[in-house]
């Protein structure tokens, strides 16, 4: 098909331009914009007869109306795919950023992908050992799951993500890490990439970087570019792929900005009403597919504005993802790493991936017992703060003791400490041993005999 070119733009505002007199533009198609000798990319977002609105990924800064050339390419924004992408670094639109030249391949795909047919999915149930006790015991990560980290400014989410990626061992197959930096600070990116150096993992990383200083609208494309490549490695090449996307909050802000320019009626806090569906087209690209060898696991990171979990970004994310790992400022202040908030975190897929034949037979009951006990700890603590610790019953005092150890010994671990699931569960029993046996109602008598005696 002939590529059409137009010179002159009718209107430009924010990241949008309007063209008139266009024939045959396709909805969502990729356009190339040339102005002042610089090339930019954009896509068609509305067509009304011969009037076309285009969103420019790099923004409209320094664009002049008459001298701008617009070429309609007749295809959507695509990314080239090749096994040689391993170890490479790209920009937020998938162009090389490491000076190693273009990816050579005839395989190209639309970055928007297509929805996975639910009939074609395989229900994920294989345990990924992250070596982090709190996650492995209480919020087990499953291969093919989308499990975000809900963090806050200044909390160690990057450390946690890196630790998970480094330590994750899976029983078979290779692990490829796809890292999408969405509006991240340079220092964050450097920390994340350098943490993998010398770990063997570094040649298995593919990075897509949109830094804080890079164009805002490009952020809309970055996770999609990364996921298209991730899908290729998972479902075409058969790798187990872990996708780390950070920071989804920047993504959502870009979405809001764009929506604003388009004059759309906002929903909560100015974010567009379609943000749920939009985020879903990112998160739902995780999974396992019948007849395909690999898997796509997502570890998105977002920073909750004001640590507010009801803010639309964590809220809509939590409605789509298969659980969430919430970081707690309180634990962080008390020097506990990883500062995982046990009560508000959740892994929805763990139920079918733990226990006999998966982790260890006692795992489901131990997890349930830890939750019950730790939630009781909160009650006892608030009571103690009112009536004083001395006034507590002996049982309540035992709970306080348990709570303290649980946080200091079980949750807390080193950035490079890698615990096996057996170590984690044995440690859990040790924590439970601080409670009177009558309190252990969620584990069976046999389990008490078998495991509790061992740690006592």
């Amino acid at each position, binding site marked *: 098909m002939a590529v059409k070119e137009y010179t002159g733009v009718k209107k430009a505002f924010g990241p949008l331009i309007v063209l008139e007199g266009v024939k045959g533009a396709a*909805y*969502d198609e990729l356009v190339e914009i040339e102005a002042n000798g610089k090339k930019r990319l954009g896509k068609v977002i509305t067509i009304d007869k011969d009037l076309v609105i285009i969103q420019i990924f790099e923004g409209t800064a320094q664009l002049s109306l008459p001298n701008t050339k617009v070429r309609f390419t007749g295809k959507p924004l695509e990314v080239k795919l090749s096994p040689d992408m391993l170890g490479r670094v790209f920009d937020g639109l998938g162009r090389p950023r490491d000076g190693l030249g273009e990816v050579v391949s005839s395989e190209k795909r639309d970055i928007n992908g297509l*929805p996975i*047919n*639910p009939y074609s999915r395989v229900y994920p149930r294989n345990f990924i050992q992250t070596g982090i006790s709190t996650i492995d015991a209480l919020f087990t990560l499953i291969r093919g799951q989308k499990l975000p980290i809900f963090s806050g400014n200044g909390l160690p989410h990057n450390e946690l993500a890196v630790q998970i990626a480094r330590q994750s061992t899976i029983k078979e197959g290779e692990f490829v890490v796809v890292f999408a930096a969405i509006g991240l600070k340079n220092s964050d990116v450097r920390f994340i990439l350098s943490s993998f150096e010398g770990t063997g993992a570094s040649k298995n990383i593919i990075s897509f970087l949109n830094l804080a200083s890079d164009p805002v609208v490009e952020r809309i494309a970055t996770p999609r570019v990364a996921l298209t490549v991730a899908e290729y490695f998972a479902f075409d090449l058969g790798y187990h792929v872990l996708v780390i996307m950070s920071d989804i909050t920047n993504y959502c802000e870009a979405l809001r900005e764009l929506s604003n320019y388009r004059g759309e009626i906002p929903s909560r806090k100015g974010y567009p009403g379609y943000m749920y569906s939009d985020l879903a087209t990112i998160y739902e690209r995780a999974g396992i597919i019948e007849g395909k060898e690999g898997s796509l696991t997502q570890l998105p990171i977002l920073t909750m504005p004001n640590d507010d979990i009801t803010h639309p970004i964590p809220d*809509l994310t939590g409605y789509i993802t298969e659980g969430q790992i919430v970081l707690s400022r309180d634990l962080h202040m008390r020097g506990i790493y990883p500062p995982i908030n046990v009560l508000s975190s959740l892994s929805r897929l763990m139920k079918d991936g733990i226990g006999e034949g998966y982790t260890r037979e006692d795992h*489901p009951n131990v997890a349930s017992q830890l939750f019950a006990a730790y939630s009781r700890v909160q009650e006892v603590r*608030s*009571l103690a703060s009112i009536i004083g610790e001395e006034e507590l019953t002996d049982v309540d005092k035992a709970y306080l003791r348990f709570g303290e150890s649980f946080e200091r010994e079980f949750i807390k671990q080193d950035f490079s400490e890698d615990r096996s699931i057996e170590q984690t569960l044995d440690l859990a029993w040790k924590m439970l041993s601080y409670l009177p046996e009558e309190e252990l109602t969620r584990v069976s008598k046999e389990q008490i005999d078998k495991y509790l005696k061992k740690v006592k």
Partner: protein
Amino acid sequence: MEAKVVKINGPVVVAEGGNFVINEMVRVGNLKLIGEVIGLDDDFATIQVYEETSGMKVGEPVEGTGNLLSVVLGPGMIGSIYDGIQRPLKFVEKLSGGPFIQKGIETFPLNTHKRWKVEFLLEAGDTVNEGQIYAQVKEGAIVHKLMVPCGVNNKKIVERIDKSELTVKDYVYILEDGTKLGMYQTWPVRIPRPVKKRLPESVPLITGQRVIDTFFPIAKGGTAAIPGGFGTGKTMLQHQLAKWADADIIVYIGCGERGNEMTEVLTEFPKLQDPRTGKPLMERTILIANTSNMPVSAREASIYTGITIAEYFRDMGYNVAIMADSTSRWAEALRELSGRLEEIPAEEGYPAYLASRIAQFYERAGYAETLSGKRGSVTVIGAVSPPGGDFSEPVTTHTKRFVRCFWALDRELAYSRHYPAINWNTSYSGFIQDLRAWYGENVDEKFPEYRDKAMSILEEDGKLQSIINIMGEDVLPDSQKLVVRIAKMIKVGILQQNAYSAVDSYCPLKKQFLMLKTVMDFYEKAKEFVEKKVAMSVILKEDIVSKIMRMKEEAKTEEDIMEVYRLVQDHFKSVEEKYRE
């Protein structure tokens, strides 16, 4: 004149020319994407397209079909998984050539190759009327009845097909005016299917979930909403109901939710047995999936597709339960389309007609006498996903106006892993009075009374908890401490029910009653001794209390519960003896 696309804005397309009617199904563009006309203005038709429009251009053709957006109703639906506009996802996979759903796929909703053994119920010479059952086939756990379409009345049969194994494309009878009565019929999804008469709801839908059956029951033909923030257990509860509710047919709509949750049903249900029929649960289940990454406009349609299928089975005289997870996503789809149509929004961007759409949907539930004189019901249970878990938002508040059961899920309960996290203070059932008689006659005459007593203990406990939170439990007199303890017994021993437990996932009504009786009779006795100033530690003997708390898991049969009951009696006998000494 042939209609042509003149404007494209996401799933909303405007076509010029053509002679369409509102709600007509159309084929849009070179890819012939399925769409529905939602507005007409002069020569322009506004069309909602049920697939992604990327790549579409101005000038592409739009074809009318002459039909309203409809579903195909006939044998072969049970056990299937459809998308929001009834395309079977199994065939979509085939036609897409893989796991990713391609655009513009056209496929008939029923398997056209399968041969059904038909039992003919009428003969040439018989006269038929709308709704009448003329033939039937065995399908899954039920008998699928073929009914005369609406509008066909007082017509004689002149011919019967001369085969007994038919495919859905075959006709069954020919009528005097040449009309063929086939193996399937079609029905426009936005129009409720008619019934002869609506009947009051007086029989419970038994779910095996104690907090529902015992405390907040729903009637067959009733309506319920399950509001709750993310992770509070809406989907688990919907799945539990889909598994265990005593309905003949389950229609489960995954409306804008996770793909894996549909996969879970697809993998799990064929392996689970319906406790009443012994057949795999999948043989009574129909799934409709518009997962969150599938096109938003089809999300809006999925709810109607589902409820129309449910009504069709009701018309055969079955009790159908429909679960929609989540109606909020449907409402958001309405909002998104409304925004693209540049309608003036009411609250939070939702269109002003949000409330009436919600009302119309829930109004399609009910217990009814069908056109053929049978009794059938559609029970509607909708999940609601309020942003930030805030129940004051528009979808929750409007839904509350139109449903009779409100099972409010509570974040605090979920955080402390009290499941199902149905808050007993803010939830309600409008069927308690209507179902009293049924419970009295079919379970135990004392059931309603015990239930009320348990509720008032929970209520009193609620008040006491606010005192405890400030001053500790020690300030309470023993009689109130007892209330707190009994409330705990109810909460942990009865209300909490682990969906993953092999024993407790489903709890028969009789067992529910015996458990309640055990706890409440314990309370009555304990109260007497508290009045007699017996020490609490004696009354609430550790091992007895722990037996009661664990009876849901450890007492597998009614007999086992009676055993616990006897232990309680013995316990109080010995307390009595000690007291006398």
